[in-house]
Structures are given as C-alpha cells and as structure tokens.
C-alpha cells in the first residue's frame, strides 16, 4: 500500500488512527500499541502477505539475540552472539539483495554457472535490517535497555518508516512509545501531521511524478543506445535530480507527518540538500538517518579519522562505496558511491588547504556561497546520472552528451544571428539543428519547470523550516529558521494556511485519480 494511494489515505489511515485513539482512550496504552503493530503488519502484508514470515522471523531472531546481549556479561559469548546477529541480518540482506549480483559477476569473470532461484527483493528489507543491526550493536555496547517484544516489534515495523525510512534509532522511538501519554489524541499533533503529510503528498504526486517523464525518456533512450543531445542530456539529468529530490523529500515529509498524527516525532531525514555548499554539507542534509548510520556503524568502527589522513580517506571511500552498494546491487551504484567518496576526499583536502591558507573558500570571493552551491550541485547531478542509468554504458552516453561530446545544437532561428560572431573553432561544437533532435523532450516548457524548481530548492524554505515553530522533527534545530525572518512565510494554523494546504492536497488527490499512483523511488532500495 503506497502512502500516495486512495486505499491508504481514505481507508487504512482513518481506520488505523481511529482504532488507535479509541483503544488508547477506552482500553489501555499497550492495547493501542498492539493495534498499531497489527495495522503496520497489515500495511506490510498488503504488498505480499508471504513477506510477513520474513519480517516476523527477522524481528523474533533479533529480539532473542538482543535480549541475550543485554542480559549476559560473558564477553566471548557476547562477541559470538553479536557476530551471529549481524551475520544473520547481513546474510538475509545478502541473499535477497546481492546474490544475483554476485552470481552474475562470477559468471562474467569465470564462466562458472551457478543456478539461483528467482529471487524477488522483499520490500523494506534494507531498512528493517539496518535498524535491527543498530539495536544489536547498541545492546552489545550496553546502551540498549531491555524493551519488551511489543515495543521492539513496533520499533521495527511501525508503518510510517517501515518501507523507506527514516532509519530510526531505537532510543528515539522507544522512549516515545513508552511515554505515559502515548495513544492520546492531540489535535495540535494531528494538525501539524496532516500539514506535513499534505506538503509531502504534493511534492511526490505533482512535482516528482511530473518530472518523471522527462527523466525517463532520456535515460530509457540512452539504455537503447540513442545518444541524447547536449540539452536533452542535461534536461534528463536535471529532471531526475529533481524527481529524486521531491520524491524522497515528499516521502520523508509524509512519513514524518503520519508519525506526527499518531503523536510520534521522527528524526529529520532531509534538510534541503541542494542548498549544500560542499559535499560534506550535502551528506549532512541528504538521507540524514542513513548518513548517521553509515557514520556511527561503519565509518567510525573502521577507524574514522583517528588513524591518520590516509586511513581516514580510505575509510571515507569504503563507507561511501558500501553506501552506494546499499542502494542497489549494481555497478552503477558502486560508481555512484565511489564518486561521492572521491568528492568527500577532495572536499576534505580542499578544506584543510583553505584552512592552512587562511580564509574558507566560500568567504574568499564575492558570490562564494552561490558558486560553492553551484559546484556542489553539478557534482551531485553528475553522480545521479550513474544512480539512475541502466548500466555504466548508458550513464557514459548521457555524461558524454552533457560534456559536449556531441557538441551543442541550437534552434535554427539562432543561426543568422550567431554565425557572424562565432569564432571558427566554435563551429566544431555548435550546430543549428534544433535543441531536441532526438525528440526525447517535446517542449521548451521543461526548461522553465527545471529553472523554477532550481529556485525552489535553492531559495525556498523547506517543510521543517516552514513548521519550525512546532518542532516538526526530532533533533531539528529551530535556529535554521532565522534565514526566513519574515514570519508570514512560516506555517501557523490559520485560514490562509488551511486554504493553501487544502488546495495542495486537493491537487494531489485529483492527480492521483487521473494519473494513477507511482511508487516512491526509494522503495527499490
């Protein structure tokens, strides 16, 4: 069941909320949480009921191992159980997500044929596996308390974050589930929740799904060997850049909004990443909970920055490479992770160089911030080409076109005005055969949309900033609001905002009815 589907919005959600608050009011807290767990499992089973055994087994296995780690103090047994738990989780993920990739590459390299059954990746497996590894590690470190099975199951299966995150930390969630006032309806929570959910729904259904055709036509053409023109390639890459942004940010808003309706706050997962002025900053804003996981449970255990510069950079690179592989079993994801690893290394080297020289880069020249943001954005767009493309060859085709391999073709009508001013060497790169020769993009409208979206992602406040007065997410620092001093732009529960939100929600609901509902991109990871 998708968040952006009628069955979810008009059937599942009202029934779940009504049941939760009703049980919370008439029976007791635990019963209400049990209802929430039941609803979450139903939500998960909607895709494929057979997957229930998978998540059920995973929860039971991890709960038993975690309890052992919490209650026993014999070090070698604890080591053994931690290894067992982590290996068990990784083996499950490895089988479903990476077995085919490994076998295919083995076959390509050695010619050895290994027959695998047809493996279908169960939805959400990457998310609930990581979440449980965190709990095991924390239990091993002696930081996790002994929570009961109901709370633990709900931590893992809670429907707002189950499918595509945020990857919540047990501390953030379990303390909220065990609060005495949980399961009590709060109209303020509901108002904030429905607002965040509506914004997310609009981002996903109107903006992200609206960008999808532009991106798909270019990437699909590249897959079949068609070489897009310079403009087609850039439009395709930028369209995907915005599609992914609004898809994921929309999903995160919807997840945060849903949890908030229930009275639960999620950690922030997305904080205007395209406003980042360097790659380090980008990773503090994009999929924040995954970055946190990779930092705390991979980069730091690898040694982090404690073992010298070379080890630090190699740790960074390995972390990003594995982060790439987490997104999907394919070489394009490895390249994407490798690229970001390289960006981060270059970024750190540059920062240390600038620190030695005196001023930071963004303060060294006029418009330094804007230039830094632009450079970061272009690097991110280049990496997204690998993330989206169906294979390295398709990505190379698009990147070649983006970087003038096929030259630039402008509309016919420019020819008379430009030819006399052009230096002779430019004629090698410049033609006048039309901007969209392959017909992959059908109108100039796309350029207007992309430009408008660029302004939105660079200069508009994000959802959390709009709702900063009402603590929309855990750990969100309201000081960031100071950038938007004009208070009228910040959300408050008044007439104006109810009209705006009603209109955004209505537009999304109508678009869903007309155009069907597309899955969130992050569901595939």
């Amino acid at each position: 069941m998708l968040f952006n589907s009628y069955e979810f919005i008009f059937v599942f959600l009202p029934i779940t909320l009504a049941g939760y608050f009703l049980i919370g009011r008439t029976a007791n807290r635990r019963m209400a949480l049990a209802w929430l767990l039941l609803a979450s499992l139903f939500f998960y089973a909607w895709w494929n009921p057979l997957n229930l055994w998978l998540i059920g087994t995973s929860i039971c296995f991890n709960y038993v191992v975690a309890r052992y780690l919490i209650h026993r103090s014999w070090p070698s047994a604890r080591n053994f159980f931690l290894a067992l738990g982590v290996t068990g989780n990784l083996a499950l993920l490895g089988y479903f997500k990476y077995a085919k990739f490994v076998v295919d590459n083995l076959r390509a390299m050695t010619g050895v044929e290994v027959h695998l059954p047809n493996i279908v990746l169960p939805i959400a497996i990457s998310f609930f596996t990581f979440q449980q590894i965190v709990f095991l590690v924390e239990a091993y470190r002696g930081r996790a308390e002994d929570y009961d099975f109901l709370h633990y199951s709900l931590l893992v299966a809670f429907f707002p974050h189950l499918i595509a995150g945020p990857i919540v930390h047990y501390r953030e969630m379990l303390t909220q589930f065990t609060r005495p006032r949980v399961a009590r309806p709060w109209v303020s929570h509901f108002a904030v929740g429905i607002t965040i959910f509506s914004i997310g729904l609009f981002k996903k259904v109107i903006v992200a799904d609206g960008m999808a055709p532009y991106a798909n036509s270019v990437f699909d053409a590249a897959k079949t060997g068609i070489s897009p023109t310079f403009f087609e390639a850039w439009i395709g890459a930028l369209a995907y850049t915005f599609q992914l942004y609004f898809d994921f940010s929309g999903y995160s808003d919807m997840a945060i909004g849903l949890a908030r309706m229930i009275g639960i706050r999620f950690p922030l997962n997305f904080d205007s990443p395209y406003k980042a002025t360097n790659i380090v900053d980008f990773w503090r804003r994009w999929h924040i909970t995954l970055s946190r996981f990779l930092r705390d449970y991979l980069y730091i255990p690898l040694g982090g920055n404690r073992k010298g510069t070379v080890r630090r950079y190699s740790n960074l690179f390995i972390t990003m490479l594995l982060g790439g592989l987490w997104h999907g079993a394919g070489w394009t994801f490895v390249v994407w992770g490798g690229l970001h690893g390289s960006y981060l290394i270059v970024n750190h080297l540059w920062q240390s160089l600038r620190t030695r020289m005196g001023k930071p880069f963004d303060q060294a020249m006029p418009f330094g911030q804007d230039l830094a943001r632009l450079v970061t954005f272009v690097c991110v767009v280049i990496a997204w080409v690998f993330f989206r493309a169906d294979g390295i060859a398709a990505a190379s085709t698009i990147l070649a076109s983006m970087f003038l391999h096929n030259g630039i073709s402008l509309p016919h009508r420019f020819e008379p005005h430009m030819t006399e001013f052009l230096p002779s060497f430019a004629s090698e790169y410049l033609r006048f055969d039309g901007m969209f020769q392959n017909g992959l993009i059908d109108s100039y409208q796309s350029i207007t949309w992309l430009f408008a979206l660029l302004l939105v992602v660079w200069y508009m406040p994000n959802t959390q900033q709009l709702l900063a007065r009402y603590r929309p997410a855990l750990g969100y620092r309201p000081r960031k609001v100071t950038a938007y001093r004009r208070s009228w732009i910040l959300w408050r529960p008044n007439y104006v905002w109810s009209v705006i939100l009603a209109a955004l929600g209505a537009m999304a609901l109508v678009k869903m009815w007309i155009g069907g509902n597309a899955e969130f991109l992050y569901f595939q990871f």
Partner: protein
Amino acid sequence: MQNFYTSNFRGYVYRLLWIQAALLVVLASTSISLVTDVVEPNDDFISRLHLTRNGTAKNAAFGDSHIVWGIVGSPDFITLGADGETIADMELRVRYYFQNKRPGKVIIQGDPHSFSPYKLERGTHAYLQDMGASFWRRFIAHHRQYLGQYWRKVIANRGLHVFHPKHEIKWGWVVGKDRWSSVDPVVRVHQALSRVQRQTPIEELQRHEFAETYRRTLSFLKRSGAEICVVTMPVSYDYHMHAERTRSTASAIRFFQDVAKQNDARYVNFFGLYAQPQFDDYFTDEDHLNEVGAPRFTKKLLSACFDRPD
C-alpha cells in the same frame, strides 16, 4: 475574537478538511459537466461507441483506420471500428454488435499490418472491454486518463468551445480530406518507407494469439450465419512498393486467405488495387483512402464481396 490570521488547531483541521472536500466536489462536478456537455458530443471514440451500441444495420464492416477511412458507411451498411484498433478489439466489437442481432453481409479486415509488433503489443482499449458501460463506468475507465488534458485545453484556450470532432464521420466512415498526391514525392517515399517499417508483420504470425483471435472471430460470424468477406485494403503506390518486398507481408496475406477459406468466406485482395502513382489522389496519406478514393473503392469492394458470380 478570532480573526483571519488567528491560530487554532481544531479550527484549522476542520477548515482544511472541509475546504479540501469542497474543492474536490466542485472539481468533480465541473469535470462531469465538462465531459457530458462538451467533450463527449465531440469525441470520435464516443460517437463510434454510440454507433456500435445503437446501430441497427445487419450489414457492417469491421477493422481499424484502414476500414473506417476506406469504406463508406450507409444506414444499411455501417462501418465499425476506430483508428489503431487491434484484432482483439475487432473481435470485441463484432461480438458486441451481433450479440442481439443476426448478421447479414459482414466485411472483416484482413490487413498484414494487423500483425505488426506495435499492434500486437497494444492493449485493448478500456471502453471496448465494456461497451455496454454506463456513463459513470465510461467516465472512470475512459475519460479519467484524459481529464487533465481536457482541463489544460480549456484553460489554455480560455473557453469551452475548443472541442471539435476530429473528423467528419458518416455512419462510421471517416471522411478523409487530405490528398497524398499533394505531398512532395521525396517526402512520400520516406514517409511510406517509415510506415512500412513500422507496420511490417511479424514472422510466423500464425502462432500468435491474435491469429487464434482472428480465426475465432470468423468462426463466430460463420456460426451466426453471416455472409463474410475478408478484405485486404488498398495502399498507395509508395507503400505497396516497399511492402511487397517483405516476406512476412506475403505470409500474412496467405494467412487471411486460408482463414477465409476455412470459414467459407470470400477473400478479396485489394492490397495492390491502387498501387499506381496516378491513384495517389485517392489517398489521404500512404495507406488511408480519402473522400475521392473511398466511394469508388466501396462500390468495387461491395461488388467483389457480395455479387454472385454469373
């Protein structure tokens, strides 16, 4: 006292939900009105649907655009089909039209391009699967996907007078106004070649499920007592020149011939009937007859199909 900008969570939630519900109701009612009053009366698909539902003639011709552009319909002999329809679509239309009436003379299209990949991959049109559907079912199954386009058109043109029938249709016949002969000869060659490439039938079409569908359609008509005529429609000189070179086209024609024979139907091959440059004036494009060619062809076809040999 609460003013326009005062915060109130409960009031906010109620207002948001009420305004949203009101917006949806307004949008739904205006959309329904737009479809019933403006779109449907000008929709070629719907007019063909009405003809299929309400037609009383026992004699009819069935097929895709080749048939509906090429055979002149009349009250006694209507033309039923639509652009882009497939063999599966044709079966649905035939069965629906003759579900409550005994067929008389029936012309069935037997064109090689019915087995081209783009036709074989195309899904059946939603409204053909449910031709007896009420307006509401049609609204959801057919108009729903185009609602955004309808509204965009209305908004872009700032008025409701922007919907016109795409073509003039008489008893199912689409009156083609253009002249293929007026197109530049070089362009004609290229366009025809490109169309032939798109419309080349697959090899071994006899094994495709559409072959079975076709056999089933003719068998149904035979059982119902129809006098069947399978026709391969004429194409222009340039189209024919490229198409006749392909082996699968010949194989497709043989298939239609065989199926017609198995069902005691007459088979008429008019594929090359107008494959001379002087007949380009009969066509609206490379493979569709126009208002000049269609009447002449219809006369010839009816005679070839249903006149008793002396």
